[in-house]
């Protein structure tokens, strides 16, 4: 039987978002790689502090929205102008102003659904997925900064603890996941 691989983390628990923001900057400055920070609510500026790239979802939304526009216009022109042209209320076959409401709705529909689908896929959110919970309070009232020990082997456990305590963590914990 092969040995189970373990991922060992040291967790810094914070109870205030402003302290957390400073702490993230401080910890990164001291050369520690942060695995991830978990919060019960969106903390503004945290993604910059962690050095994340901007979300690509606006681009996805735009692309899907454009698909919606194209689909709507192609569909209506094909049906109303080429496949079965009929004069209705004396209007033109290609009654472009009449096509605007449906074009708008399909743009929004595809844009919204495409973007949300991308959001689910890129964040790996799916039904029955087991959430990786480092500390149960991360969805309640505490911010949890997780530091993977293997990826920070240049620093000893004691050093990491003192960096976290020095940055304002109110509690230090260990967590091990079986990979």
């Amino acid at each position: 039987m092969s040995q189970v691989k373990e991922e060992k983390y040291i967790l810094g628990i914070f109870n205030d978002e402003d302290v957390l923001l400073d702490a993230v900057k401080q910890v990164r400055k001291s050369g520690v790689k942060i695995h991830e920070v978990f919060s019960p609510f969106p903390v503004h500026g945290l993604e910059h502090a962690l050095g994340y790239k901007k979300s690509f979802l606006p681009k996805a939304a735009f692309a899907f929205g454009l698909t919606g526009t194209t689909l709507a216009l192609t569909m209506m022109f094909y049906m109303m102008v080429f496949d079965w042209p009929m004069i209705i209320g004396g209007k033109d076959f290609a009654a472009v102003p009449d096509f605007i409401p449906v074009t708008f709705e399909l743009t929004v529909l595809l844009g919204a659904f495409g973007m949300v689908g991308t959001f689910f896929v890129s964040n790996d959110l799916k039904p029955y997925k087991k959430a990786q919970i480092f500390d149960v309070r991360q969805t309640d009232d505490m911010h949890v900064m997780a530091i993977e020990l293997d990826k920070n082997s240049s620093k000893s456990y004691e050093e990491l603890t003192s960096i976290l305590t020095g940055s304002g963590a109110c509690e230090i914990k260990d967590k091990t996941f079986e990979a």
Partner: protein
Amino acid sequence: MEVTSSLKESTHGSHEIITASVRQPLVTGGKSMKDVTEDVCRQVEGKPTPAWMLAFAVSLTVLGLGSYAVYRVLWDGIGMWGLNKTVGWAWDITNFVWWVGIGHAGTLISAVLLLFRQKWRTSINRAAEAMTIFAVICAAMFPVLHMGRPWLGFYWALPLPNAFGSLWVNFNSPLLWDVFAISTYFSVSLVFWYIGLIPDFATVRDRAKGAIPKAVYGALSLGWNGSAKAWMHYEAVSLILAGMATPLVLSVHTIVSFDFATSVIPGWHTTIFPPYFVAGAIFSGFAMVLTLMIITRKVYKLEDYITMTHIELMNIVIIITGSIVGIAYITEFFIAWYSGVQAEQYAFINRMTGPYWWAYWSMMTCNVFSPQLFWFKKIRRSIAATFFLSIVVNIGMWFERFVIIVTSLHRDYLPSSWAYFTPTAYDVGVYLFTFGLFFTLFFLFAKFFPVVNMAEVKSVLKSTSGTIKED
């Protein structure tokens, strides 16, 4: 109130020190983040209270009784309704437009106020969005039943290849635009609501004790763990959805108004309809949010989250939109006179003084005169008055739709065919059915879902609450 008074004292005193923030606190009672979780999860985790059971039983009964009317309308046809040769639309479209309008406040609160960075939306957006979804479901019942044979509706309403060859739906018709508008509105609102629920479902999941709640909320929360990366994407998604939903709100009721405005019936054929309908929708939507939130905050003891400030701000929206609606009524009259078209002028005089004068004046009393009472601060900040007036506004908005639809139709160009529409028990029954449906869904929501958006309230807690409790 405390904040304002302390501010006044400090400016009148000898020391010019400002001791309070400019804004009133959004969350009172010195809540900590833990308190927010506890207060909101209490209802979800506890057993249903007797009050909830009773309310749920009542709405189920209404739903059951109404189902009989729906069954007869489906089985025997829409001849069960009181429609006649001039009034071809009446309660069905009145109720449809009314319910769609009610839905608008939800999207407005969650989308428009998000774009405008109005933090007070956080306590009420969840329930308002739920209201939107349920109201749109109720609204959709009417055009569906109106088809007579709704099981064929798929290829009557959607551009699907059908048995008649390549005869497609008519994209020149505003009724078809409605199909696209309402279904898009419903699905986008549903997605918006669900995205907001995911982090809160995760909170409930992590607190859940039993195996069933663990499994159900585990499935619903999609494995959310609140990582900074997920929050970053979440915020991007919320903002863009809000950006897309904002024009969507305006488009939906604009398109609903096109059902009338693109026709040539005197009383309907007006360019003022799109903005006027949108204002009316927001007006009735906010009234319904107030009706529901005043009950919810009381029953669930959420007075610290849905505060007097929230109620007052919503009442201000009611004054604004109510006044817009009032101006629209007057403008319609002016334009009818100014157009010089006799049929148009008659349609409006007939509304005011004809056989439906009572409906017209009910509308004016409820929509134009009563909300003006909110100019008085005492009334604006009174729970009882707000609750009463919110119901009055909803009645008024129903009458508005009824007046527009029925009074424009019942006397057409040919006096020999003039008729008076009277609803049958089946008109009333189907309407009751939608009430039963709406409240059944709302009570289920209020029991099993967190009614206040915990994550978003926590995010504004520090900057907007009066005092912060230290753990």
